[in-house]
């Protein structure tokens, strides 16, 4: 049942090469004959697909595209604007959060000294609060300097689609 004759010549046969030897084998070997039939069916399907009339650009396609590109390249795109604004917002958030943490921690620890992460996370009553909220997210969001109105609308990072 399993004969490799056809499979070994698959690419040549697929591309249309036939020979007397192949024909002889196909006449004797039902398994290859069956497979060859499928090969012809698939090949015919491909050729028919290829021959279909292809859609053509509507009149003025290139001109419209150039105009569109011109408009897109004028004035920085909206997406870029939000991207930049978004990045600035992230920086600002990081800095403000850090300052807020310092403000909480410093008065309790007296004169300025080197602060380690461990100091911030594990000392004082604030630590318990922080532990109740393992990711510290709620306290960050409550930071007074960050009015929620400043949050940009979900960045419209649309590419041209």
């Amino acid at each position, binding site marked *: 049942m399993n004969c490799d004759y056809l*499979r070994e010549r*698959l*690419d040549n046969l*697929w591309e249309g090469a036939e020979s007397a030897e192949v024909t002889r084998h196909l006449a004797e070997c039902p398994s290859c004959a069956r*497979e*060859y*039939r*499928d*090969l*012809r*069916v*698939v090949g*015919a*399907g*491909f*050729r*028919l*697909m*290829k*021959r*279909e009339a*292809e*859609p*053509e*650009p*509507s009149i003025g*396609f*290139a*001109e419209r*595209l*150039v105009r*569109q*590109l*011109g408009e*897109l*390249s004028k004035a920085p795109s909206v997406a870029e604007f939000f991207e930049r604004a978004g990045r600035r917002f992230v920086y600002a958030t990081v800095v403000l959060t850090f300052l807020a943490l310092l403000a909480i921690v410093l008065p309790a620890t007296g004169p300025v000294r080197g602060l380690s992460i461990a100091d911030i996370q594990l000392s004082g009553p604030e630590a318990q609060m922080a532990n109740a909220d393992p990711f510290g997210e709620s306290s960050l969001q409550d930071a007074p300097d960050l009015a929620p109105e400043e949050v940009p609308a979900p960045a419209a990072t649309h590419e*041209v*689609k």
Partner: protein
Amino acid sequence: MENSGAQLAQEIQWIKRAQQGEPEAFGPLVQKYQQRVFSLVYHLVRRRDEVEDLAQEIFIKAFRAIRSYNFQSSFVTWLSRIATNHCYDYLRHERASRVSFYWQMGEESQQELEANAQSQPEDALDHEEQLALKDLVEKLLERAPENDRKILLLKELQDYSVEEIAEILNLKPTTVKVRLHRARKRMLEDLRQWREENKRS
């Protein structure tokens, strides 16, 4: 798509100006390659109504990325790579499997069709039979793994050479040959398997 020396020099001028951000210089490149892109997109997505929008998106992407074109491969190969990737992004989101026309034919008509397809050139088949064959191959392509599909489409429908496909897909030509062989084999195996599935149900 052969370029004469003068045409090529002209094309390089357009590309360089487009790389400076001049959309007007991109226009002639669009003119020159729009049919090629339409054809590629159509064969990759098989949806007439989507082709123009996709082609437009592809040219916009190409213009935005044109500084990354370094004249190593031909411009059309570079453009085809962008087009192929764009179509696959689209297909990943849009693919909906439709009912197969071929499998609704009944076993006898299928066998008759297969016998006809073997004994005569495909344009001698009647309209229904032609539709069924195209539909069968379309469905087989939909079932094929993405890498197989890409390679088969570029080879069988777009007539790219092994070397060109290698450039478009960023592979070695020998790899393309091996994958093409495997893709063809798998497609025939899948047809056989699919036939069994249909017999059982």
